[in-house]
């Protein structure tokens, strides 16, 4: 257990070692470590930010969807209303047409009845004349009695 020159040598070696570590090893490695720590921290912060953004976007999407649904409902309502209106209008037009057709038919019927009545009246007039002929047993001049006969026919 003697202390000798070795001790000085070891001291010098130690000093060199410490100097080397301080100068060449520590700064580089520590720099890398610290930079990585910063990167990791930034990455985590970015992830956090992205998560928050995603949440925001989700909320926005929900609002949009709600609005779209509302709009769709409105459109459907409007379409239904419009459909009803069209139906109503068509119904009214159809009714009008029916009424018109009915009126026309009634007119026709009326005119046909009129014509039939007139024919009937003429035929009745003729029949009456013939009957009268038979009754009178003589021929009445239709031309001479035309005015009379017409009057008769009109009276029937």
């Amino acid at each position, binding site marked *: 257990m003697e202390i000798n020159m070795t001790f000085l040598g*070891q001291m010098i070696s130690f000093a060199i070692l410490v100097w080397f570590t301080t100068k060449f090893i520590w700064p580089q*490695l520590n720099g890398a470590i610290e930079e990585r720590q910063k990167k990791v921290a930034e990455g985590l912060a970015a992830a956090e930010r992205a998560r928050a953004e995603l949440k925001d976007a989700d909320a926005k999407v929900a609002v949009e969807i709600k609005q779209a649904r509302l709009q769709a409902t409105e459109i459907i309502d409007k379409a239904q209303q419009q459909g009803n209106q069209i139906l109503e209008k068509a119904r009214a037009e159809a009714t009008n047409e029916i009424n018109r057709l009915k009126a026309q038919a009634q007119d026709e019927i009326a005119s046909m009845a009129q014509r039939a009545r007139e024919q009937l009246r003429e035929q009745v007039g003729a029949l009456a004349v013939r009957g009268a002929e038979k009754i009178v047993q003589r021929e009445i001049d239709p031309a001479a009695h035309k005015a009379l006969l017409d009057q008769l026919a009109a009276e029937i």
Partner: protein
Amino acid sequence: MASEPQGGLTEYIQHHLNHMTVNFSADHFWFWNLRADSIIISFVLGAAFCLWFWLFARKATSGVPSKGQALVELAIEFVDTQVKDTFHGDRRTVTPLALSIFMWVFLMNAMDLLPVDLAGWLVHTFAGDEVAHHTYFRMVPTADINTTVGLSVAVLFIVIGHGIKAKGGFGFGKELLTAPFHANNPIAKLVLVIPNFLLNVVETLSKPVSLAMRLFGNMYGGELVFMLIAGLMVSWISFVPGVVFNTAWAIFHILIIALQAFIFMMLTIVYIATAREHH
């Protein structure tokens, strides 16, 4: 020393406790003995540490680290965490110091795990019987008091340097004379200068002594136990227990190796931290 009559194990151990010594002075004064084995092994290990860490430091990336870089970073962050917990200040010089101490002492301690006869066997094999008889080589630099004292005295200088840097030359000197006993009137202050100074000297000197003796004692003792166990393997009867004991002691010694390196580093940090404190 080897003339004792027991021979055998005693001689074996005494042979193993001799250092490879070189003396440069003409009169062979003992102080000028240089223990070449301690110096060479510690220097090689220090250089290995430098090279290893430097290679990774050179191409250190802040991106995904290689496994090697991760290992190096693990060591650095481990040391840095310890420093951070104990020492509150600029760590740019303290952590490298702690890292150097930890890795160097750890590597030197780890030499204890090499077989005690490895060096002897190598000399034997490559240089022959005759040379081996006169050649001494001890593998564990920290089992040499010179290494541990060298380290702890260097640490002492660093600690004092930190004290002076933190308090200024005047403040450091003043504290040396006025702490730990404080007084208010000047006469009492003057009276207390001597006990204060003595106490501070004792306190300061006890630090390197305790650091050096603790590490030296642990490693020397560990080495001695390895040698005693190696003595078991001389006979075939005790060979198997020898192997068992050797393995058990080696496994236990892994703990001591790391623990002693850690304690040396930790105490250095604590000493620096206290040196920077104002009393």
